[in-house]
């Protein structure tokens, strides 16, 4: 497939925003169960929520560049019963609204206990956070299923696609939370940093697993099944035009195998290896700038990861476009 930068920015930006929200709420849940002695300030939550919301808005804006008719985008909420894209279109603003509500509730100090169970006090911010978490996971699943549901794009048609969107988004969000806490809540830096390392390691395992799976894929469609001729040697002589078409522009990345392989190694290093080293370095020394660097490197790496995700997918329609003439 031809990687579209609008979609690369959409999926990476909202993934980071979602991960950051999960990080904020994880901190609150730890405090709720008295597992974390430090409770962050309301400013920390409001600021974090606004950063997450900004990332989600930036992703939404990027997505409009993918549309031929952005002014009709409202129509895309119609077919949520059958289309994962339509479901994402509903889940994204719902989640954005809940992130805003979550940040606002913290700012307005809606921490009065609604229900008290023993020593645990459930407040409005906890409820909004829980609802936001549900919507966050729904959004991860919708975004990933847009790709994973296309069964003949075999590289995408796997549960690993969903797991990777979830873990890669969360990893970048927790790394951002680590960098953010340096300035807003230094006492939480270690907490977020350790989670960022754990999730980045998990994401590395599942992303490498999907790379290994894709290496072994055997295309179900062949030129024989595409044109229905049983012969081992079929060569295309003409594809019906000589100047290219939508078929040749949309479904081919047009880059060399060497470049593709290089991008793979670049993202494996910049999404996983370097951020892990920078996070570990930043946490063990007190050179906190390393933590900010970890996020920037990881986000840049995710752009490469997402580019590779699209470029690696081999569409069966390409069988019909092997030779110009």
């Amino acid at each position, binding site marked *: *497939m031809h990687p579209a930068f609008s979609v690369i920015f959409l999926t990476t930006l909202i993934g980071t925003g979602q991960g950051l929200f999960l990080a904020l709420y994880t901190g609150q849940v730890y405090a709720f169960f008295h597992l974390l002695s430090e409770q962050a300030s309301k400013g920390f939550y409001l600021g974090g929520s606004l950063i997450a919301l900004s990332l989600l808005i930036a992703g939404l804006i990027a997505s409009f560049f*993918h*549309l*031929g*008719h*952005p002014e*009709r*985008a409202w*129509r*895309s*909420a*119609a*077919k949520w019963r*059958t*289309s*994962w*894209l*339509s479901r994402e*279109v509903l889940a994204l603003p719902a989640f954005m609204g809940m992130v805003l509500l979550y940040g606002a509730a913290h700012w307005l100090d809606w921490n009065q206990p609604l229900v008290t169970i023993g020593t645990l006090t459930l407040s409005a911010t906890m409820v909004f956070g829980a609802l936001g978490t549900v919507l966050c996971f729904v959004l991860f699943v919708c975004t990933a299923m*847009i790709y994973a*549901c*296309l*069964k*003949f*794009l075999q590289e995408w048609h796997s549960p690993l696609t969903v797991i990777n969107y979830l873990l890669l988004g969360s990893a970048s969000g927790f790394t951002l939370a680590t960098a953010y806490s340096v300035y807003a809540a230094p006492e939480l830096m270690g907490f977020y940093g350790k989670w960022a390392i754990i999730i980045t390691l998990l994401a590395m395992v599942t992303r490498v697993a999907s790379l290994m799976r894709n290496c072994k894929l055997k295309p*179900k*469609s062949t*030129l024989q*099944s*595409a*044109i*229905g*001729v049983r*012969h081992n*040697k*079929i*060569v*295309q*002589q*003409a*594809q*019906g*035009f*000589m*100047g*290219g*078409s*939508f*078929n040749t522009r*949309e*479904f081919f990345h047009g880059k060399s195998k060497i470049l593709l392989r290089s991008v793979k190694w670049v993202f494996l290093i910049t999404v996983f290896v370097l951020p892990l080293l920078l996070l570990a370095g930043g946490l063990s020394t007190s050179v906190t700038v390393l933590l900010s660097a970890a996020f920037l490197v990881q986000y840049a790496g995710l752009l490469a990861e997402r580019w590779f995700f699209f470029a690696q997918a081999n*569409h*069966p*329609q*390409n069988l*019909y*476009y092997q030779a110009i003439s």
Partner: protein
Amino acid sequence: MEMTQLALVIDLNVCVGCHACVTSCKEWNTSGQAGSMSDDRPYGADPTGTFFNRVQTYEIGAFPNTETLHFPKSCLHCEDPPCVPVCPTGASYKRKEDGIVLVDYDKCIGCKYCSWACPYGAREIDEHQKVMKKCTLCVDRIYDQNLPEAERKPACVLACPTSARLFGDVHDPESVVSAAIRENGGYQLMPEWATKPASHYLPRRKTRIKIHADELSRADNPLKKERQLPQPGKSEPSLDDVTSW
């Protein structure tokens, strides 16, 4: 199954690759109800544009045992079209009454997701109108009561000089397309994705006669027609000697 499903049957045995179906399709549809199909640099070095139908060419086998196959390619109007459920707006739909898969150009947002969901590459975005386009089976002419009945067919079918393109209802067992599929080995493209394409292809067919060696002489010869007749001896009287006229 009882509902109508209009489709094409393309006979690869008689297609000569003349592209008349391509040009007639473009001519009809660019000036039809759905509006123009835009082109870029039509007379330039790398012309490109929107087409509903293309003819491709393949070479099968290695020299000297090669065969040229011309392969017209357009939307197959799948009975289970994967492009329809993924459309977020409902712009892509399959008509209940005749099974034609269509795009509502006024609802399409140009997200291209349907084209990703078509394994055949049958959909093309119009680079100027920014909406997804595809074969309509000439829906604006096959029901046109102002046309003589014989002309209520897709433009490509009417244009084909070798009658390689048949049009009809593949759910009606008596239709010309059903008979062609049934009797001439009609097949579907990429059956592995279970899209159930309504349009079928007829394979290249060879006409061969198998003659066994014993068929070159008569196996039984009741009238002894080719038997070696006994030769009379030289001293035997001839026919003239024994008959008197």
